[in-house]
């Protein structure tokens, strides 16, 4: 195919180069581009085209009828049939004939429910380390959390740890050797239903 629009500018720069430069957010600063009127013109045109493309996508998203609840629930129904149980952790029982176990998924769920119930805390990831499939083996938990603005990180983290120990002791007899809490994100304080009304 012959090029109708020249991709090399009179100054010698190619549109590809300029497109790359733009994609890198115009860093590192390239004086040969930033001081060349022709390059600046082309950059502006490329930038406008990119912006217009993104506007087009947003515009069409607004024009399409909103997603229906049924459409979302179809996805939800389908994915909840693929639960992530993970490994099975044995639990002790006085009768050796009885074998009890709890799944990793259930423990994560317990960790989330316990952590989320604390004001200003939302649990992120929960990783279980250790020889989890051996009864009584020490297990280490690494939990990340997001904290709402205005809360003290160390204070909330201590509370999460205390509550998690208590909940795990109450619902399982796992040998929890340690719990690391890292606060990785900060979120706005969400509006509660009663505050909106």
């Amino acid at each position: 195919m012959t090029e109708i629009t020249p991709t090399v500018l009179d100054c010698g720069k190619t549109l590809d180069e300029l497109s790359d430069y733009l994609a890198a957010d115009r860093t590192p600063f390239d004086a040969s581009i930033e001081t060349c009127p022709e390059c600046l013109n082309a950059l502006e045109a490329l930038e406008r085209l990119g912006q217009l493309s993104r506007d087009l996508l947003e515009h069409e998203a607004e024009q399409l009828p909103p997603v229906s609840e049924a459409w979302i629930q179809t996805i939800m129904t389908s994915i909840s049939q693929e639960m992530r149980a993970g490994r099975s952790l044995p639990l002790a029982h006085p009768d050796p004939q009885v074998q009890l176990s709890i799944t990793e998924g259930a423990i994560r769920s317990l960790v989330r429910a316990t952590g989320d119930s604390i004001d200003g805390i939302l649990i992120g990831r929960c990783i279980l380390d250790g020889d989890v499939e051996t009864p009584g083996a020490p297990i280490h938990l690494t939990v990340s959390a997001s904290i709402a603005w205005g809360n003290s990180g160390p204070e909330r983290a201590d509370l999460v740890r205390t509550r998690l120990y208590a909940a795990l002791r109450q619902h399982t007899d796992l040998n929890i050797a340690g719990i690391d809490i890292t606060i990785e994100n900060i979120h706005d304080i969400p509006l509660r239903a009663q505050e909106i009304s």
Partner: protein
Amino acid sequence: MSVDLNADLNAVDDAVLVERATDGDTAAFEVIIRRHGPLMRSYAYRILRSEADADDVVQDAFYTAWRQLSEIRDPAAVRSWLMRIVSRTAFTHLRRRPATETDTLLHLAVATTPDPETAAIRNAQLDALSGALDRLPEDQKQCWLLRELVSLSYTEIAQELHLTPGAVRGKLARARASVAIEMEEWR
């Protein structure tokens, strides 16, 4: 699910939602669907030009996403990851579909700025770009959308489409030339 948990989930960053969803929390995944679904549908619609097909493709993309969540390298960049999946799914669907099934296209013209003249020019620009993109050959369109709408680098597009970065560069240059010609009068 309590109303409060919903409010909390809506307030947190994508990274936290992805972590929870990876651990099996479907409620967090639902927030991801609500947050990113609309733009994914618009992306799929741009490719397929059929609302029904776009809806199907985005659902499929979310099933794939749910199964592959643990493979995300950067949970904060979930939007770009989802857009890549929807792009892949939509083009696969496009190749399998009989040629003629598209909707009467959405009419884009909507004046939202206070100045009617500016709005008219803007709508004409969007229409012109929309038409120009529709007329691009499939491979060029695919590269263009990944580049401009998902902000992937040449190398990332090359990996995505199993091409060399040089081939991607060439396709984008041709796409840019065609689009620029069609958009000429709007410069």
